[in-house]
């Protein structure tokens, strides 16, 4: 067993640095106790399902987290030897129960399923659904595997539900998309930070350290319909909380921009020198004076003006940053909303300036790297377009294949999932690092789609809700059991290192793809060694927007800070726009945007707007965190956050069960009364399965540019439920399976 390792947290894009060391008493059921050396995981009574915790986690000093970790990071090692872990390939029998089979049998089955399906229905009848948590090596290889081994165009990933709108807007405006185009520590000195729909206090708590300077200056401005934990930081002189009614973020941004233009706060010399499209944007902003925007958003005109002035003041003194998150991006007009945020930042002269900037906060662990190297339907490694002949020729050369072997663009995630089991759709699907049964919009329809497949293969380490649907579940390594790289939310490439030998039946996905490629007689090379794959990724990315060619493992292992683009011979690019933007003329493009008619919706009946989001204790679909006793114990079930006035009108008291319904489905869960939500809005976390699955209610309509679904403004009806119809308390963990009863499957 390796003797511990310096690595990073398995969860979000902040990628907190941590050190893993073998636990003092790994053999016993009792978890490690704290030592004097470092703040280590203190004793938490483990539930029987967690088994022994083989590693101790301690925070490691790094610019992003400065030694801090949140509860998810502290408890991450408790899943490594969890009794519910899948450690052998599991085949679903005719009785619907999964039984272990050998790897040889599993590989034969997969190969046969692919060949049969493609023979009958064509190459595109096989599809791949990837994830933003996969390492760069896996994400790269998955794209190559789909195109060369499976010969299909049908590959996309769950990042479509995450970063696609911000990415599309960034590419349109700047010619390139890197979450933060500057090191996160640049935020420390800012006097004003505008956070758009991002609840970092829960989603990436150690990040909050970088907001302290702005809070001290009274300049933290948070836009969120909910008084989130992050919004609460604006209390006591920390700044301003703007609470627009859901779906009106775009109008709010136009209102702030209107004030910037009309009060002469725009940085005209910057605009002149660095942008184009200004005049058209000014014209489009005219219709959004603050009082009109107040009528649309519910945000007082005075606060709209104050926000504009603070941002402008900050840009001149200390620095102003605008950061966008999923709250404003996960909409049918998400790309335009992100564009409005970018336009505002360009009006103020922020991007590329020394002490100001614009960025978007990537969510998933490798949400950045995962969107650069080819697991997107329209993309090839290095952030290249699959439709670009030069890009295709370059990649074909690196792969040593004829260009004609690389398929064209496929379908974005929502369309891909809609096509499952349909004529001309996907009939055999591979899922890697995703739990679509919980995380995709309109999940009832998605589940039906999965059930209509001829063959579903899911790679996971737990029986996630999606794995339960699979014909074949293939057990793969967890983060502490593998080597690789990730690209954090700053565009900095970091190393994941192995600290523990995986259980005997578990394989890496690289190994799996290499074997399958061989059996499918794929051209080119499929290595199962991460460093070898990375060396190939370097060549493939060379000359692309996300150029990694100058980065290698040795450099990363020396602790060098490597920000892409990092062409061979360069020093990398900590600050992406220091020398202009990535369009041919070096200018940023301002695109006029206006709210779509759909965005202005009337709620004349007693329906409410449903927003979905995250809790501190859980990550994404909860497939991992719901298996950590400490986290589950703290947040065991979904709770509907509802305003006391709204609840009173429906006869709902705190703790009552409530149904949340619309034409797509129904959620049943407890209500939590709080005036942190607007009276016209309810909030559900999206980490829970089954009857608590918020995505039963979300609609699979998408942004026309990015393919992002509408996650934040579903229209729902809320009623008090008869409590007798529900199982009482949250299910306890059964000793045998180690799984909470209400989460009996899942990823």
């Amino acid at each position, binding site marked *: 067993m390796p003797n511990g390792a310096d690595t990073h947290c398995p969860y979000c894009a902040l990628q907190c640095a941590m050190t893993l060391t073998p636990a003092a008493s790994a053999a016993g059921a009792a978890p490690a106790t*704290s030592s004097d050396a470092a*703040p280590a*995981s*203190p004793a938490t009574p483990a539930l029987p399902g967690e088994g022994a915790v083989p590693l101790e986690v301690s*925070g490691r000093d790094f610019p992003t987290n*400065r030694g*801090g*970790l*949140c*509860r998810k990071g*502290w408890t991450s090692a408790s899943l490594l030897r969890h009794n519910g872990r899948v450690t052998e390939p599991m085949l679903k029998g005719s009785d619907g129960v999964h039984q272990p089979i050998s790897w040889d049998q599993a590989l034969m089955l997969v190969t046969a399923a692919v060949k049969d399906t493609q023979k009958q229905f064509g190459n595109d009848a096989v599809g791949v659904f990837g994830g933003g948590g996969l390492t760069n090596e896996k994400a790269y290889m998955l794209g190559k595997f789909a195109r060369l081994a499976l010969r299909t165009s049908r590959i996309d990933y769950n990042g479509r539900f995450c970063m696609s709108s911000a990415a599309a807007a960034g590419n349109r405006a700047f010619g390139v998309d890197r979450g933060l185009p500057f090191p996160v520590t640049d935020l420390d000195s800012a006097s004003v930070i505008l956070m758009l729909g991002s609840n970092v*206090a*829960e989603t990436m*708590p*150690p*990040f*909050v*350290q970088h907001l*302290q300077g702005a809070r001290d200056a009274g300049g933290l401005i948070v836009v969120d319909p909910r*008084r989130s934990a992050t919004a*609460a*930081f604006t209390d006591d002189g920390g700044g301003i909380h703007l609470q627009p*009614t859901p779906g009106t973020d775009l109008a709010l941004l136009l209102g702030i921009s209107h004030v910037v*233009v*009309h*009060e*002469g706060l725009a940085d005209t010399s910057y605009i002149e020198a660095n942008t184009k499209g200004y*005049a*058209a944007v*000014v*014209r489009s902003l*005219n*219709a959004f*004076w603050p*009082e*009109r925007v*107040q*009528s*649309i*958003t*519910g*945000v*007082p*005109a*005075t*606060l709209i003006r104050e926000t504009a002035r603070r941002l402008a003041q900050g840009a001149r003194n200390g620095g102003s940053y605008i950061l966008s998150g999923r709250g404003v991006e996960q909409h049918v007009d998400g790309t335009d909303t992100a564009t409005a945020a970018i336009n505002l930042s360009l009006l103020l002269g922020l991007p590329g300036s020394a002490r100001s900037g614009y960025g978007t906060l990537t969510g998933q662990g490798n949400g950045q790297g995962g969107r650069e190297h080819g697991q997107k339907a329209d993309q090839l490694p290095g952030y290249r377009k699959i439709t670009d002949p030069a890009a295709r020729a370059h990649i074909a050369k690196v792969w040593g294949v004829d260009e004609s072997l690389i398929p064209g663009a496929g379908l974005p995630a929502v369309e891909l999932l809609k096509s499952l089991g349909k004529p001309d759709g996907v009939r055999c699907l591979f899922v890697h690092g995703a739990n679509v049964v919980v995380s995709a919009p309109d999940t009832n329809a998605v589940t039906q789609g999965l059930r209509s497949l001829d063959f579903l293969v899911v790679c996971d380490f737990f029986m996630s809700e999606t794995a339960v649907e699979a014909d074949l579940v293939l057990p793969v390594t967890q983060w502490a059991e593998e080597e690789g790289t990730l690209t954090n939310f700053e565009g900095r490439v970091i190393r994941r290192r192995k600290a523990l030998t995986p259980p005997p039946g578990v394989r890496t996905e690289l190994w799996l793809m290499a074997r399958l490629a061989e059996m499918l007689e794929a051209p080119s090379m499929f290595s199962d060694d991460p460093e070898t794959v990375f060396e190939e990724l370097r060549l493939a990315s060379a000359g692309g927007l996300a150029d990694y060619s100058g980065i290698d493992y040795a450099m990363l292992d020396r602790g060098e800070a490597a920000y892409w683009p990092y062409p061979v011979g360069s020093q990398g690019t900590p600050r992406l726009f220091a020398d202009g933007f990535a369009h041919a003329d070096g200018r940023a493009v301002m695109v006029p945007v206006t709210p779509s*008619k759909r965005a202005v919706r*009337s*709620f*004349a009946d007693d329906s409410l707007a449903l927003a979905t989001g995250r809790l*501190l*204790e859980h990550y994404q679909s909860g497939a991992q965190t719901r298996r950590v006793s400490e986290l589950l114990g703290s947040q065991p079930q979904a709770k509907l956050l509802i*305003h*006391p*006035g709204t609840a*009173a*009108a429906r006869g709902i008291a705190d703790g009552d069960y409530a149904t949340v319904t619309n034409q797509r489905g129904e959620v049943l869960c407890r209500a939590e009364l709080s*005036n942190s939500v607007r*009276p*016209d809005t309810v909030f559900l976390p999206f980490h829970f399965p089954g009857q608590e699955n918020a995505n039963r209610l979300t609609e699979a309509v998408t942004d026309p540019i990015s393919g992002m679904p509408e996650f934040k403004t579903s229209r729902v009806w809320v009623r008090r439920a008869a409590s007798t119809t529900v199982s009482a308390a949250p299910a306890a963990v059964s000793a045998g399976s180690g799984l909470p009863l209400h989460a009996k499957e899942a990823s």
Partner: protein
Amino acid sequence: MSERIVVVGFGPVAARLVDELLPAVRTGLVQLLVVGQEAEAAYNRVMVAELGVGRTAPEALAMADAAELEADGVDVRLGVKVKRIDRARQHVVLSDGTNEHYDRLVFATGSRPVIPNLTGLNPDPASPVLPAGVTALRDLRDAAVLREAVAGGKRVVVLGGGVLGLETALAAAEEGAQATVVHNGPFPLGRSIDRGSGSVLTSSLRAGGVRMAGNARSTGVETAGPGGSFSALLLEDGSAIDGDLLVLSCGVRPRIELAEGCGLPVGSGILVDHHLRTYHEPHMFAIGDCAEVRCPDVSCLDCRTATGPSGLVGPGWRQAEWLAEYLVVLAQDGQEAADALEALPTEKPGVVVLKARGINLALAGDNQADPWDEELLEAGAASGRARRQISQWADPEHGRYVKMTTRGGVLEGLVAVGMPRTAAELVVLFERSSELPADRSLLLRLDGPDQLDSGATSNDPQRTVCRCAGVSAASIEDSVLEGCSTVGEVSKATRAGTGCGGCHEDIKGLIEKHFQATAA
């Protein structure tokens, strides 16, 4: 041959229509001719007063760019009037001497300011010639006149207590002019608001530096200033209000002469049906300030209660968007497809939010009824329809006043002064016809200091001190009891403070509290 659409007028509403039609122009589906009387392409008239007090620049007001439109294939004629319309030949006669054919014609002629009947002003409403020092504040030139007066700290007299008059006076006062509002009745804004809000508003305006002259009837202007310019507004009671600039803010009237001149039916505006088509002439349309949506169907309930053009730009923009879609479908798929489109929804009564820095005022709908006013409350409450209900909050000392008029819990009227968050929320509720919380005081509290979750800042031992690691005060106190005496030690023992570090002060406080208690 593609259809030719002629748009008469080039204000903000016409600009929106042109914008929406642009894609069809680019593909050649339609041809577009826009005729604008002013020398400039459309600009944001709503902001003219702001421009007049120096709070924005002329270039920021542009809503269209003639050169760019021309490049896209739009025929733009600026500084040109449509002299008349020949319906029989389907062409317009322009002041530049040309005749232009149309397949469809859209009136977007807007409105003109009402010039009151005062001695000393030219009474011809169609082409008023105002003396120097008198302006109706309608276009960029008027704004420049006001700008000069404000910059010079001059005396500005605003005649008319409407929204625009109040906005102009307050902004002028805030920017250094001496401003006076002269209006009829005991308080400004007439019947849009009630006495309570009127009184609070008047006080607030005075506090904002505006002289308020109520119950004043003006009879004429004195032009004894330099070069025969304005010097005083004369009142019925024989008194005079001296000033350097008179701003006429007495409302607007739709420009309908052109439509009337070619025989189209008009009311207060050009009469159109729910598809914005003029009566009897379905290929002519009207949008914006000049249009009066009142269909010929006598049984149409919406139209029986319609009140004519609102004078607000929002409804005009919605009409422009709707009409653009209609015209495109018409050109592409024919009449039947166009008629199958959903008709334009009836506008709700307009919401007014005072564009002002120092004063917050929002109002909408009918605000006349008082809580005990049986007659008004019962009005309209027949055949199962609920009666009106009033909730009210008055705090004149602090300049605050709110009245909510509801029916079945849904707002029919609202007025809020001095309570920005409450006002913003009420307007959204009004726009969406959403039901108010039964406890109306919830809405009032939005502007109170207690609106936030108090959180558990108390001594509750179960409160979470460290959110990142989920550690309660009790756990931290236990660790202190067990010997931890620094934040670092507490962090090691409990993980509290190991995430964002935001609770370090709080942990320190708990440690100090323990030692203080021990010392005592």
